[in-house]
């Protein structure tokens, strides 16, 4: 009896092991393998299997993944959508897609055809893929806890209508978008109703519209991303609890282009970002309760445009260096505070040598108000007359908002 009692658990454990091995089979797909195409391999695979795809050119029309598998490419096999299909649809939790070159998805104005689309699933990982000429790149619809990492996404469309977004997340939660590079799409990264997510170390450049586009997405952070040369910069709208840390916004040029556009944003935090060579570094409209610290504004047309509809915005300890205009505004109502910033245009003095200027600095120049009202007047900028007007205005402020000033301007660069 005693012997039986010992042996039974042993068999039980062995059988579990056996099951484990059985359910994590590796299925090879390739020209010289049993399975010549991915579709048949997917059909016989079970949850937990790995499908390894050899290098080659696969025209599989639309692949639908309905099991929890790892789909892995060896040396970037090409999945070709022949400009007609959605290439991979993920309809299972915990799927991993790794190492493919996904090209030529269909273009449709009715459906959002994409390179890879996740339908209502969680824990999906999409990493190390190269996407070229896809309508939408990677699309998450109602997903949660998914990781999109190290993908290279490139599109070549010339018009906004002919192009979707690089990484598009809709109604998702706890997403991690890490280390992707996106260019040539309509919006590089697009978030709509996405919460508690992080966008980290992505490179989004030369997109037709926005590098990053945020709508109704609360409590997300984006950290150390690089946005340059996008048609209209980066736009963050109708959200609260947005954290922006250490990003770079560069060379967004044009009348409607902003390094960062904040519209109806509340309770957010902007620290350590660089705004370089934009027509407007930051444009704020209807924003409130935002803290801005230790950002660098350099070589912008306008470092910051704060419309009179903003309130309780605290701008402190930032560096403003060689911008044409430091701050622009459209009214005289000021409900925001500027403190302890470094302005390179400040020409006050510091008698007690505590590194804080003794007279306040007014970042809104008279001429920036004139240009705001009458844009062609930009033509007279830097003329003797314009500097004369600016000087007089500094002595006796009349046009510029009286309360928009930095009471404690720093004498030296802060960092």
């Amino acid at each position, binding site marked *: 009896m005693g012997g039986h009692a010992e042996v039974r658990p042993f068999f039980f454990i062995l059988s579990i092991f056996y099951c484990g091995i059985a359910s994590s089979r590796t299925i090879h797909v390739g020209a010289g393998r049993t399975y010549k195409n991915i579709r048949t391999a997917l059909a016989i695979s079970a949850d937990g299997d790995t499908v390894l795809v050899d290098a080659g050119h696969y025209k599989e029309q639309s692949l639908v993944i309905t099991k929890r598998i790892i789909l892995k490419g060896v040396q970037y096999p090409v999945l070709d959508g022949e400009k007609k299909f959605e290439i991979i649809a993920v309809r299972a939790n915990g799927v991993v897609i790794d190492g493919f070159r996904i090209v030529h998805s269909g273009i449709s104005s009715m459906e959002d055809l994409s390179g890879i689309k996740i339908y209502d699933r969680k824990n999906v990982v999409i990493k190390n893929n190269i996407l070229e000429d896809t309508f939408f790149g990677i699309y998450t619809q109602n997903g949660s806890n998914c990781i999109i990492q190290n993908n290279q996404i490139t599109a070549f469309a010339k018009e906004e209508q002919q192009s979707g977004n690089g990484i598009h997340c809709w109604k998702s939660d706890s997403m991690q978008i890490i280390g992707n590079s996106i260019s040539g799409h309509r919006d590089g990264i697009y978030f709509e109703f996405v919460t508690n997510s992080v966008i980290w170390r992505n490179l989004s450049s030369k997109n037709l519209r926005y590098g990053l586009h945020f709508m109704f997405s609360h409590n997300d952070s984006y950290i150390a991303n690089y946005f340059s040369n996008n048609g209209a910069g980066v736009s963050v709208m109708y959200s609260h609890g947005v954290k922006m840390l250490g990003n770079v916004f560069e060379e967004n*040029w*044009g*009348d409607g*282009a902003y390094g960062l556009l904040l519209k109806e944003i509340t309770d957010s935090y902007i620290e350590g970002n660089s705004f370089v*060579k*934009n*027509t407007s570094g930051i444009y704020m409209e209807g924003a409130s309760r935002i803290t801005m610290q230790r950002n660098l504004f350099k*070589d*912008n*047309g*306008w470092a910051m445009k704060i419309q009179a509809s903003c309130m309780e915005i605290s701008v402190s300890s930032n560096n403003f*260096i*060689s*911008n*044409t*205009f430091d701050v622009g505004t459209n009214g005289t109502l000021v409900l925001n505070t500027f403190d302890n910033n470094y302005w*390179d245009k400040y020409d006050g003095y510091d008698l007690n040598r505590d590194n804080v200027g003794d007279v306040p600095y007014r970042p809104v120049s008279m001429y920036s108000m*004139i240009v705001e*009202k*009458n*844009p*062609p*007047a*930009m*033509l*007279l*900028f*830097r*003329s*003797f*007359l*314009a*500097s*004369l007007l600016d000087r007089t205005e500094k002595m006796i402020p009349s046009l510029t908002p009286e309360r928009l000033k930095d009471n404690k301007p720093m004498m030296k660069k802060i960092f």
Partner: protein
Amino acid sequence: MRKIIKYVVSDILQNRIVLVYTAFLLVTAFSVFSLEDNNSKGLLSLLNITLLIVPLVSIIFSAIYIYNSAEFMELLVSQPLKRKTIWLSLFTGLAVSLSISFLIGIGIPILLFQPNKIGLIMLGTGILLTSAFVAVAMLAVVKTRDKAKGIGVAILLWLYFSILFDGIVLFMLFQFADYPLEKAMIAVTAFNPIDLSRILILLQMDVSAMMGYTGAVFKDFFGTVTGMLTSMIVLLLWSALPVWLSTRRFIKKDL
């Protein structure tokens, strides 16, 4: 002709005022670059000098010089020389010598601290401005016999080009704010060499701000090679036209 030019140039370069002018430009340019911590800010101060001081000195110095060399010109006219040659060599001498002092005063610091596109455009426009204002001075002088009046006219012309013109333009801009004035403004700038030079430099310096909608219109014109060439030609016309008019006048003038 070459002999007269040589004589005028060597005469002016030995002139104490021109020496002071050169030294002044040199000292300000160096101090501006060494005082400001970033060189582009220094360039900005230099821009103001180039747009204000250079035209002022060129126009007033030329006016006074021509009045003072009235006897010398009478002597030349009595020689078998064409009046046209005399007048043109006087112009060339003035323009060349003032350009030389500008090149020494501003050119050396710029080549040391900012040897880039903006710096070179600033040098180019500075020289064109010098010669334009010498030409304007000659036109003013040839039209007024009285010395005090002539110098007064020169000062007024400088005042007009550097301040009044901009004031009028700004006034017009606000009067006609409802109309699309961007294209018209480009044409208007052709009537003032100082504005034209300023915009050429502005487009290099404040490129981010100039990319706004209105700026883009200017950028599309002045930023292109055709626009750049056109504005250079217009600047040259600002020298050529007054010189031509004044020569015509001088040929017939009863000295």
